[in-house]
């Protein structure tokens, strides 16, 4: 295994690096939380990094010929290929350095994908990438809960009942998306026990986000981070509320912030406070009523949604993370 860069944990928001590695030139929407995720991600990783971006908003809206926002080397990869892109890049660097064909140096390799590219199409390639302990790489899945680049179509990571162009409420069927959101990060963590770092993250918590990226890049081997990214276009709200919605997702207990480091689960921020009973979960209605994508839902739907969230905190083996539990004796 090649060595990793010295990227210490950042103590205090004032110590986040000032240098920008993702700058002007992109065309993302006002209030786009995923663009912030890109900016925080590469700020934390620094200039000696190669970024691979799979098809999605953060490719199409971000990277236009002659006006790239990427200061670091960046390359497109196919929709389902974030895992393969990271593996191929890391393998190429590793082989060339080992054989003396390239100067020895730890280079960060980060591949990002959206929820469509990660939780749906690219799942098997991510799984394969997470089996290669010999390569240092990070796969970041920025989850705006729909195929947001192609007109907002429902994905396997969209919330139950959300209005999308493939799941519009109609005269007969009010709820078209009957799938519950995939539990992607725990699925990958439990399925790949040798992976040393899996985390969830949210751009509303910038310092936490920065340190998660750094931990993923310095722990060694393949790592995975799943971030929840409010999307004004797909979720249908005023762009100024992006941060607030990210926080609401956490405060209602719908999204759980945690890290799985070398086999240990550590809840972060409000999620930890909720788990310890220091803080009460806000009702899910506070979250649902702020977004147009849930506007067609009635009280019964809200109740169902709340029950599912309650269940994940009260009945799951590890609240919000592991949905099954050992049979009570």
């Amino acid at each position, binding site marked *: 295994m090649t060595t990793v860069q010295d990227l210490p944990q950042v103590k205090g928001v004032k110590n986040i690096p000032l240098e920008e590695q993702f700058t002007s030139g992109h065309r993302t929407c006002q209030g786009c939380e995923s663009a912030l995720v890109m900016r925080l991600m590469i700020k934390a990783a620094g200039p000696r990094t190669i970024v691979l971006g799979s098809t999605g908003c953060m490719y199409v809206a971000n990277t236009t010929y002659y006006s790239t926002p990427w200061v670091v080397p960046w390359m*497109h*990869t196919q929709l389902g*290929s974030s895992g*393969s892109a990271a*593996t*191929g890049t890391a393998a*190429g660097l590793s082989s060339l350095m080992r054989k003396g064909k390239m100067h020895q140096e730890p*280079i960060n390799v980060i591949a990002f994908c959206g929820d469509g590219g990660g939780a749906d199409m690219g799942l098997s390639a991510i799984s394969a990438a997470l089996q290669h302990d010999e390569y240092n790489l990070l796969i970041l899945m920025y989850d705006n809960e729909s195929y947001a680049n192609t007109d907002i179509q429902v994905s396997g990571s969209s919330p139950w009942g959300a209005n999308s162009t493939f799941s519009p409420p109609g005269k007969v069927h009010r709820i078209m998306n009957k799938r519950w959101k995939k539990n992607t990060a725990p699925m990958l963590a439990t399925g790949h026990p040798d992976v040393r770092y899996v985390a969830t993250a949210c751009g509303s918590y910038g310092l936490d986000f920065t340190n998660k990226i750094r931990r993923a890049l310095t722990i060694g081997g393949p790592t995975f981070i799943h971030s929840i990214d409010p999307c004004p276009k797909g979720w249908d709200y005023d762009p100024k509320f992006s941060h607030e919605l990210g926080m609401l997702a956490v405060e209602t207990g719908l999204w759980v912030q945690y890290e799985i480091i070398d086999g240990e689960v550590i809840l972060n921020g409000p999620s930890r406070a909720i788990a310890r009973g220091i803080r009460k979960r806000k009702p899910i209605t506070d979250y649902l009523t702020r977004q147009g994508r849930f506007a067609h839902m009635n009280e019964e739907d809200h109740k169902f949604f709340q029950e599912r969230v309650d269940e994940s905190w009260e009945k799951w083996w590890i609240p919000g993370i592991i949905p099954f539990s050992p049979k009570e004796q």
Partner: protein
Amino acid sequence: MTTVETQLFQTETEDLISGSEAIAIACALADVDVITAYPIRPYDTVMQYVSKLKADGVFDCDFIVAESEHSQFEIVKHASAVGARTFSGSSGVGWFYAFEAITVTAGLRMPVVAMVGNRALDDPGAFGTEHNDALAVRDLGWMLYWVATAQEALDTALLAWRVAEDPNVLLPMAISCDGSFLTHSQAIVKVPASEQVRKYLPPYDRGKLQLHPDNPITVAPQVNEDWLMEIRRQSDEAMKRSVGVIQEAYQEFKEEFGRGDPSPFIEQYMAEDADIILVGMGTLALPVKVAIRRLREQGTKVGFVRVKFFRPFATEELRQALGHSKAVCVIDRDYSYGSPSFGGVLFHEMKSALYSLETRPLMLNFIAGLGGREVRVRDVNQIVEFGQQAMATGKIEQETTWIGVRE
């Protein structure tokens, strides 16, 4: 597995090896950096040999067993972007599973070298050879070659990295090997010494296109209607330039290793004075040559032209090789449903290549050997008879004929 691993390629040797093993050895000789495998018959024998060479410490490479063909080709594409020499391969529907990755590899100008162990496209299930799998890349910017012997497989692989990685080309290349007939059949092969190969094959240098923190470029941003035509045109020019690069690389290969045909693009067999010329690709050359030799003994003026490079297509050389003949019988181990002549892919390419000749030979198409069915000497004789009949009457009764099919 033969004993080549103990010899370490210090000197040139002669070994009894299969076509797949020949290409695996070429990978070691070329010091390939990243190789990706996924199992599908019959190509995967090459990866079995590669993994053994690595396990025995003869060959240092990153050998990655991917979870699908799509990932196989994505991984080598990205390894190629950072400057690694790469090899991958597949067969039949596996090749098709990788197709998205295969097309972007050419679009991105990544000099990946791949082996296609030609296999019929399922369903219904069939392991035998058929050329439709590899032919599907013909419009994508891949160079595409059909080998006929294990020796040619090894030699072509070395040529492939040399041409593909040339800064004037930077296009991927697929080496097509007939399933079973070539992938699994052994023959005596001259295996060159590593030193000879090092002299012939310079290291892969991607230059200003290398993805590295010292060269922070953005690869494959959105271009849309603003720039795509210009980029397509650049790839077209690269493919045109490949013709000269292939000629030069082949000439040097012959000088360094002391073997090869007069042309890198086609092989001519008793064709100079032939009235009837058969045209085909791959291992069917063997029964065709045997039949021709026998027919020549009986005084029939028949010859054979084997198309080696399908892309770039050797239009001018084929015109010169075939222009004097009276009938051209194209044998296709593939088929194109609903095509202009309801015939094979090679036939349509040949017709197109010869159309502008002032005097055109009569052109007939034969569909043979599909799904790995053997093309026998008597099948070749039958094809020649059709050619003779057309030549005698001066007209074509039936353009496309299926040979050896139960009606």
